[in-house]
């Protein structure tokens, strides 16, 4: 165990955390402002990945793939909101869970109908491939550095949007007290559509970033969606700052746990017990953290101020 390894794993955890943030930000906005439990959020992650893969394959350019994929994902999000989700705002959470679960199944089958059965793979663009030395003997893949950079840029953009613009002010007000915002004359329908579209784009962007690493496949959204929900519970529903901090913490705990827990366990347990317990325990760590937060601070670490 040396410092270089710890540093590289920290970067891995940071990258995973940034990815979680991109998903959690949209999810927390939708849940906080629209009070909508959207299980199909992972489906926008998947649609973003497939649309990006298609445009990338058609144009041969990574950046064009993203530039075209983002408005396409926005379109998918807006159409979904208008057609499928508008009737759900008045309903209780269980109805929303059932309906959006149905959307998951719909999207999973849709991608297998439109695209090849085993998904879409894209090559890594040559200028983003390989690893780079970033000092102190640490060698880290260029692409993952790009993910960290993009995610931080998006976080900064979101901060600016939410704290410094009129739209952001309305969004924050909506997270605090939705009814009041409606009573003050803001067009709630339009606000909801905008917020939902923003969430879909963020999720889709995360999917696009991960496609060169993972490939776009049916059902790829479910795996990460559960973690996104855990993140917004830990961070506080409706709070983007909470989502950011919770996502980074979650990413770091998950990655560092996977990396070093088995070594730590070997110090106290015999070899085969440590081998069996390591992976089981490391996948539980995040949920243990969520339970702890729910126990000591149920509203989350950084909840929005509710009046």
């Amino acid at each position, binding site marked *: 165990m040396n410092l270089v390894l710890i540093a*590289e794993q920290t970067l*891995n955890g940071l990258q995973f955390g940034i990815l979680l943030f991109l998903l959690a930000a949209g999810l927390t906005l939708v849940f906080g402002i629209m009070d909508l439990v959207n299980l199909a959020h992972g489906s926008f992650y998947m649609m973003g990945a497939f649309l990006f893969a298609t445009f990338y394959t058609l144009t041969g350019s990574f950046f064009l793939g993203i530039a075209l994929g983002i408005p396409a994902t926005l379109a998918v999000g807006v159409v979904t909101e208008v057609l499928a989700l508008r009737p759900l705002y008045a309903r209780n959470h269980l109805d929303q869970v059932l309906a959006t679960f149905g959307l998951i199944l719909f999207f999973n089958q849709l991608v297998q109908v439109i695209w090849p059965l085993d998904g879409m*793979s894209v090559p890594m663009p040559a200028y983003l491939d*390989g690893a780079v030395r970033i000092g102190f003997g640490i060698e880290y893949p260029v692409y993952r550095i790009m993910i960290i950079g993009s995610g931080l840029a998006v976080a900064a953009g979101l901060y600016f949007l939410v704290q410094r613009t009129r739209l952001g002010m309305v969004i924050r007000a909506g997270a605090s007290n939705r009814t009041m915002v409606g009573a003050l004359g803001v067009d709630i329908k339009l606000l909801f559509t905008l917020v939902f579209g923003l969430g879909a784009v963020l999720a889709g962007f995360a999917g696009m970033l991960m496609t060169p690493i993972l490939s776009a496949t049916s059902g790829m959204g479910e795996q990460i969606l559960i973690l996104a929900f855990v993140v917004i519970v830990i961070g506080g529903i409706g709070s983007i700052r909470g989502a950011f901090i919770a996502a980074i913490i979650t990413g770091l705990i998950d990655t560092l746990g*996977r990396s070093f827990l088995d070594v730590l366990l070997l110090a106290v347990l015999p070899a085969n017990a440590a081998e069996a317990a390591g992976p089981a325990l490391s996948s539980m760590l995040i949920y243990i953290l969520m339970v702890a937060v729910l126990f000591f601070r149920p509203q989350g670490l950084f909840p929005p101020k509710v009046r």
Partner: protein
Amino acid sequence: MIMKRFLGLLPAFALAALPTAAMAEPIKIGFVTTLTTGAAVIGKDQQNAVELALDHMGRKMGGRDVIIVYGDDEFNPQKGKQKTEKLVKRDNVDIVAGYIWSHVLLASKATVLDAGKILISANAGPSPLAGKSCHKNFFNISWQNDQTPMALGEVLNRKGVKSLYIMAPNYAAGKNMVAGVERTFKGEIVGKDMTKWPTQIDWAAEMTKAKAAKPDAVFTFYPGKHGPAFIKQYQQAGLTGKIPLYTVYTIDSIGLPRMQKAGLKGVLGTFMTQFWAPDMDNAQNHRFVADFKQRHGRYPSFYAAQAYDSMFFIKAAVDEVKGNIADTDGMRAALEKADFPSIRGAFTMGKNHFPVQNFYLREVVTDADGNWTTALREAVLTNHVDPYAKDCKM
């Protein structure tokens, strides 16, 4: 008077006619595989191979027509068990075959075996079914999970690998694969990561650990869509070319065309072990591979090869009992003989109803048409009996 006697004999004639009437009915084979979810490509490959096999045999076994009923396990043990129940209880199939995934097979086997029907696995080979829980009506036509990695352990020894880093998914088959390598590999295992299955698909943390451990080689097992993703990330982590990669069931003819399109040159020259390769030299295999390529535009995977074999395996037994598939004892005796033309060449069926066969080294190469495929190298284990056979009390 004579009329009365004649009428009295009518029921006897009717009864005598019944078996022949039953024999004229088609045989129903239930085939459980994965036809939806991201793993559907594997199930489709098996389905294509089954249809090809049935076409090759004129859709008849023992003089009777064959109807095949597919069940989709949705890559899920509960769903697999439900579909198996439907095949056995509602569709009333005569025999059940298929099962890609070890955990699905283990969940579903009781449904078939408790109903007194024969169950044939065309892929999954979990250790309990080879050893302590072996059953007279269960047959495996592929391999036992531990055998292929045991052959790989031998390969590692022959290639002088002294330290190994292992990455595998944390479920029944993953544990078997790791156990297999550990049985035969004589060097030191410097690290082992059993990752969450099937949810974990990003191995950044594990590959960083592997890089830091500086092993002579990395061994991995990631079936289905995880395989190409792993190879991609291995290349992106800068490990391709630095630390040789040895795999089992990770790189196959389904994933290779996609890897070729994505330009993952790092996969060329990697080694794996298997009981079969598309270029194996026997008449049955040549016909299978050629017709499969013509129909579906690419080489068949080992999943397909095993599914193809399962149909001919059943056919040989049905032919032997002259179409009377209801004669379970007769079917069992015939299946134990395993006297049919297999795509792997000649082999025998072991006492625990798992094949006793050879395992070969395979290398990823480019064929004469420029397509990436796997080619057979030398035999590593010959007439190999799986390590759990001795625990089977049959």
